[in-house]
Every structure is written in structure tokens, then in C-alpha cells.
């Protein structure tokens, strides 16, 4: 499906080069990539959406200078959607560390009175660095018709994560290599991960405002009553959403297209 590739061939554009919307960014963009490959989307969308991603999926998600230069080349007159990070809460807080911590906003039923409350301002400062590169990337996309920043999906339920970890030897191997017993790993509460994700979404919205771009958060339809990612949108790993979620995003992108000229 990939037609255009970057200079080294490391990065590729999946979809039509004339597509009005170019989706780029980190690993959560893969749900859109998977969605545009679905037969029903291909039939219906035509040259509407293309995704700039790794030429070799196994080589990992995008992120180097060549990738962003490639995106700039493709961006002229296009609606550019950047799926930015979205895994910071997982990468840093999937498992409990000592001392346990909480933040204001964590719901009462999972609030741990023994946990140390951490200022929300401290959490924001901790995550701040993960948005800094955007200040360099966004100005390079000055030829785009519009720019939209998009965060990752809401956190997955603890039960889903537990099942993934128990069933996938990959996690067991990592724990073993670090000398950690699987039994010692305690997954942080749904409520804490959700609140961390909310803080990230707020930071993303603020970045979008500062940088003069649109912001698109996870669709409300993708979330359950608690605000977590509904099981039907969960991919089989611990962090990502599936192609069905990608389809939801495509619907949102169609609404955004041309809404706010950059």
C-alpha cells in the first residue's frame, strides 16, 4: 500500500499521495493506518486519508529527523494530523513504585490513603519535556492547510493489562531480565492512570493553543462509563487501540477537515 518513501526508505506514506489529510506521528497513529487498510474504508474513503509511518512496521514507530523532513515534504496544502506520543502515562506509571502516589482527581473508590499525594504541577512538569519537540516541528509545517494535534487513546482497564501481561512472554522476559518477580509487579489503578492521561490531554490542548493548531482528543464514544478505553477498541497489547478505534478517529478527522485553516 505504501507508495512514497523517504530518502533512505525507512519511512513510507501509506495511501494516496494526493490525500487531503496526512496523518503522522508516533505509535498511536497505527490504529488509523490499520483502519485505512480495512476494505470498507478503502472503498469509502478514496484518496481522503494517508498515513506517514514506518516502512517496516517491525522497525518501530516514527520519530527521527528524516521522518519529520518527509512529513514536511508531504504537507504542502494538506491537513496534517500529528498523533503525538500518548504513552507517557504508561511508560512511566504502568506499575506502582515506592512510595505509592496519588493525585487530586483520583476517584474516591480507588483513592489510597497510604499513597503520597503528588502536586499536579509536579506531574505537569514531569510530562512537559515530552511536548518540547513540538515547538520545533510545528513551524516547519507552515505550508500545511491546517495542523491538528491528537493524543493517544484513554488508558485501558487494569483487567485488560493484567491479561496481556500474563499471556505474553514478552513482559515476563523483561521482568526476568531486570531481576523482578512478576508477582511483585502491581499495576497502578485505573483511576490514577486515567487522571495522568487527563493531565496529558490538558497539556496537549495547551500546546495546541500555544502553537496555534487544532487539538483532537480521544473520541467520547471510545470510552466507557469510567472514562477508560472500551474493550471493543482495545488492541491486544497493553497500550494501543485497534483499527476500530482508528475508524472512530477517521470520522472525527472528516469533521475537522477544513474546519480551522491553519
Amino acid at each position, binding site marked *: 500500500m505504501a507508495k512514497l518513501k523517504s530518502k533512505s526508505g525507512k519511512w513510507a506514506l501509506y495511501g494516496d499521495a494526493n490525500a487531503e489529510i496526512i496523518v503522522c506521528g508516533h505509535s498511536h497513529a497505527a490504529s488509523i493506518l490499520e483502519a485505512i487498510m480495512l476494505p470498507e474504508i478503502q472503498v469509502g474513503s478514496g484518496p481522503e486519508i494517508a498515513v506517514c509511518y514506518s516502512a517496516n512496521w517491525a522497525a518501530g514507530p516514527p520519530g527521527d529527523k528524516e521522518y519529520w523532513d518527509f512529513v514536511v515534504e508531504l504537507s504542502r496544502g494538506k491537513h496534517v494530523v500529528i498523533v503525538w506520543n500518548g504513552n507517557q502515562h504508561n511508560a*512511566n*506509571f504502568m506499575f506502582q*513504585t*515506592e*512510595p*505509592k*502516589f496519588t493525585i*487530586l482527581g483520583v476517584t474516591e473508590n480507588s483513592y489510597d490513603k497510604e499513597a*503520597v*499525594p*503528588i*502536586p*499536579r*504541577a*509536579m506531574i505537569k*512538569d*514531569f510530562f512537559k519535556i515530552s511536548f518540547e519537540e513540538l515547538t520545533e516541528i510545528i513551524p516547519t509545517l507552515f505550508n500545511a492547510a491546517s495542523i491538528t494535534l491528537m493524543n493517544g487513546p484513554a488508558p485501558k482497564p487494569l483487567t485488560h493489562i493484567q491479561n496481556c501481561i500474563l499471556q505474553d512472554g514478552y513482559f515476563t522476559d523483561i521482568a526476568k531480565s531486570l531481576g523482578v518477580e512478576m508477582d511483585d509487579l502491581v499495576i497502578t489503578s485505573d483511576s490514577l492512570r486515567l487522571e495522568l492521561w487527563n493531565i496529558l490531554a490538558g497539556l496537549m490542548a495547551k500546546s495546541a493553543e500555544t502553537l496555534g493548531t487544532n487539538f483532537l482528543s480521544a473520541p467520547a464514544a471510545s470510552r466507557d462509563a469510567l472514562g477508560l478505553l472500551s474493550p471493543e477498541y482495545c488492541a491486544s497489547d497493553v497500550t494501543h487501540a485497534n483499527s476500530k478505534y482508528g475508524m472512530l478517529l477517521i470520522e472525527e478527522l472528516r469533521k475537522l477537515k477544513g474546519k480551522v485553516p491553519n
Partner: protein
Amino acid sequence: MNNNPYLAQTDKAFWSRCVSRNFNADSLWGDNSKSSLFQKDDLIVSAGSCFASNLIPWIEKEGLEYLRTEELPSQFKDLPENLGYRNFSAAYGNIYTARHLRQLYEQALGVRVPAEDRWHIDGMVIDPFRPGLAYPAESDAEFDLLKASHLKAVLAAFHNATVFVFTLGLTEAWQSKVDGSVFPACPGTISGIFDEKKHEFKNFSVEEITEDLTKFIELLRESNPKVRFIITVSPVPLVATATQSHVLLASTYSKSVLRVVAEQVSSQLKDVSYFPAFEIITGPQAPFEYFESDRRNVSEIGVAEVMNSLLQGLTASKSKVIDPPAETKQMTKSRAGKLISEISRRIARAECDEAMMDKNL
């Protein structure tokens, strides 16, 4: 020669024999047959002025346990913090006056609620008693949550300590006109807004400080009867005075008052020892190099001398970094260097919120 009381005195009673020559800092304090003020299984808590935080890396290097009850999860430990709040057992930061220490403990016990317990500044909620915190609360609800957690950590530290080290720093303070709550810094310097209708200057007397320190010790012993106290007086002069005096005169007055208080409290209460950090650094025997060039901040060499003396006897094989003043320079270059290098970084980074009063610093 007629018999007289001085004939029965040992060398340490005579300036010519123990200060003019043969000076040994260890002979300044307590009973020399006693090996140390600390025991290997002590849980040590400290509070006080900037100088009090210097103690911590030395204690830990010696293998003693510095009790920490308000630690951050590992992910956040590299984030910046202002003014050394997290240097101490709980994140109370510098406590310059005995009144502040007493009021902190009373707050933690729930028997004192300050009238002016928070400031709303630029959308944030500031703790007047920790005005320099890098990450203040964003709402009143968050402030209540963070403050309650802090006070709980204070109680845990104070109630589990076996040794409590307190460094008396200042007699001068700013307090609330409403209820006498003492602020660690004048409102308007680090944060907050100075309001002469609400805030006033206070220069505590010997009697007031003695009462505050005594009450604190007695109150703490109601919950922690076995805790031993080590009282020191900070040798660091005032960065600024709010009196009409020259800062050197104000500083001398302040240190004199604090030294008297330390003597009175340590002599009157059981298991309260005075450790003479002040004399080691400021006595006429002290070498010029014990202070930095600003003649205010204690140098790494000076800190090393104090800490070596404080911790002497803990380890039989322990060698002193600095002995007689005459050897100080040479020994500093040769032996003290490596020992100090590890902690000097931390000490240099430890800022002092008192210094915020001097805009030129």
C-alpha cells in the same frame, strides 16, 4: 602557691592549653569518654536553618539512618526543588526559629490552625510556611490534600526519631499580627504580599526562645518519650536584619541569644545535648578558611571540621579530615578533598531561602 579552685581544673579550662595550642574540637563538647552522640541504630531527624541540612549527607555517609518520611516516588526525584525543602526528614524546609518549629509540630498535632494558612497567588495556592515550594497546589482542595500529607509526614518523622537535631538559626522573624504564626521568610520576599496590617517583625528574646524550645521538647516527648536532642547554633551570620542595627551587631546579638538558649535548655532538660558547631566555626581558633570569601557562608572545610567532630567515635578506624588549625590547608588539599567532593556538590546546591531577603545575593 595557695590552693585555689583553678588548680583542680583540667587543661580544657585554660585558653593557653587548649585553644592557643593543642586545639581539638572534640574536647569542646560533653564527656570525652562518651564515644558518640549517636548510636548505630539511631533514627535521626534534623530541622533548623540551612546549616542543619549540611549534616544529612555526612550522617548517611557514616551509615547512620537519616529518617525520611516524605520521599518522592523515584520517577520524580530528578525534578528540581527550591530551597532544599526535601533535604530534611519531611519537606518542611529551613526552620529558623524555635517558634516556627513549635508551631509546625502543633499544626501536625492538629492543635493549631494558622489564621493565614494559604495565599492565593497567580492562580496557585501557596503555603506561607513553605513559600518556595517548586510545585504549589493548583486549588484549595489540592492544597488541603498536600498539606495534610505533609503534616502527617512531619508527625511520622518526629514521633519515630530517636535523635532530633535542631539548629537554632535566627531570633528575627516575621509573624502574623492575628495569631502570632511565624513565617519562615518575610511575606513578599519569596512569595506572598507583605501587608503591614497583617504582618509584623519580631525579634525573639532569650526567654521566648527558651520557652518555645522547651515546650516543643516537652510536647514531643509526650508522644516520643525516648527521643534525645542535639541542639546547635548556626554559625552563619544573618543575611539581613530588620532591626535598625548594623547587620554585624544584629547578628552578634542574635547568635548570643541563641547560644544562651542552647545552654539553658541543654543544661535544664534531660537528654538534650549542646553541640558546639558555632564555636568550632566562629571561635578565635578557627582558621580564616572556615568561612567563604563573603565571610558568611561556611566553607566545605569548615563543614567538614564540624561534622568530623559531631560524628567522632562512631567508627574506630575513622580518620579525621581536619585536626589542628595549623594543618588545615595542607590536610584539606591532601585528605579532605576526596571525602568532601561527593558531598560538596549537594551542599553547594542547597540554597537558603533566608538569602532571598537580600536582592543582591
